[in-house]
């Protein structure tokens, strides 16, 4: 058992207020971050976030359907339509292909990075929309697949400048 004096010491030290760094720290840090050299692709993740999200959304689409009773004669809105399931599977397959392509070519040029980042930002927006709709928007899943196909093309080709310009246009 901990001595009484230790408990008091811990309590007093932990109760000391947090210290604040100078207010200008973030702007100085941001400047340094922007001067960082061209990035190197991260090692492939064991569980990419969008894959995890897709799994969660798929579960969210199915589990409530098992838990809730459905009025006779009405289609259960919680059960995913075959088209939706097909888009989710396609999405997962593309993610796997992109991971493999990236594992084979970890370094990337700055423009290539910008191109891929632009696509990934769009993907993040789509995922936010999907999360808000409980993962059941076919339109958004279709857009997600389209973006992943674009990302796969980006990972396959060293055509960053042209494609990035096309994307910006």
């Amino acid at each position, binding site marked *: 058992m901990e001595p009484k*004096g230790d408990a008091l010491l811990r309590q007093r030290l932990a109760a000391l207020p947090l210290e604040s*760094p*100078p207010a200008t*720290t*973030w702007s100085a840090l941001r400047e340094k971050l922007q001067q960082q050299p061209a990035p*190197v692709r991260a090692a492939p993740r064991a569980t990419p976030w969008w894959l995890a999200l897709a799994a969660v959304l798929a579960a969210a689409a199915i589990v409530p359907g098992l838990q809730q009773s459905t009025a006779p004669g009405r289609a259960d809105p919680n059960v995913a339509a075959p088209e939706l399931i097909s888009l989710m599977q396609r999405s997962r397959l593309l993610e796997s292909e992109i991971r493999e392509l990236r594992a084979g070519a970890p370094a990337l040029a700055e423009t290539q990075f910008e191109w891929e980042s632009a696509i990934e930002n769009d993907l993040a927006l789509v995922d936010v929309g999907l999360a808000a709709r409980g993962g059941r928007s076919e339109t958004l899943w279709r857009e997600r697949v389209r973006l992943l196909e674009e990302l796969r093309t980006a990972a396959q080709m060293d055509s960053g400048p042209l494609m990035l310009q096309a994307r910006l246009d």
Partner: protein
Amino acid sequence: MSTSSFAIDVPELLIARLKRRDLEAFEQVYRLFDRPVYTLALRLLGNETEAYDLLQDSFLKVFEQIGQYRSDAPFWGWLRRIVVNAALMRLRGRRPMDELDSLLLDHAADDGVDPLAAVSAQDLKRALGRLPALSRAVLWLYHVEGYTHEEIAQSFDRSVSFSKSQVARAGARLRSLLDQEDATWNPRAMPC
């Protein structure tokens, strides 16, 4: 038991954006952790300029190494490890580790009253600042960050008994300093 101010959960989506080097996401993470990181740096190094440098270095390292972070452990633990390691590197460069062992062991006057019981936060911070840096670091990591003696021994490349001894000595030294503060600074201790 940890009383660490680092224990803040970061949403997976925010981590994912960090991994894409999204500066806005990075700023959000910075705003979550700037005070815990700065406070830990200040407690370990005892110097505002060095704590400021360490804060910047730590976040730059996060930016560079975020691809290596695995989400099977909390982000805050990973970040705290970066800060502690960087602080210990600085401390190692500052003075020989052996100096810790030469600390004089002061005992607080044993009048039955623990000086910690009534001390103000300001006096406690001042006394903490007067401890030798490595001694203060061991004390803080053990009592506030919840490190075990084994983890401290590993971080300092020393034995477990070194950690136990330093925690006890630093605690005693801190109380002794508080007693001195009380006699020196506390106006209530002055004759009317």
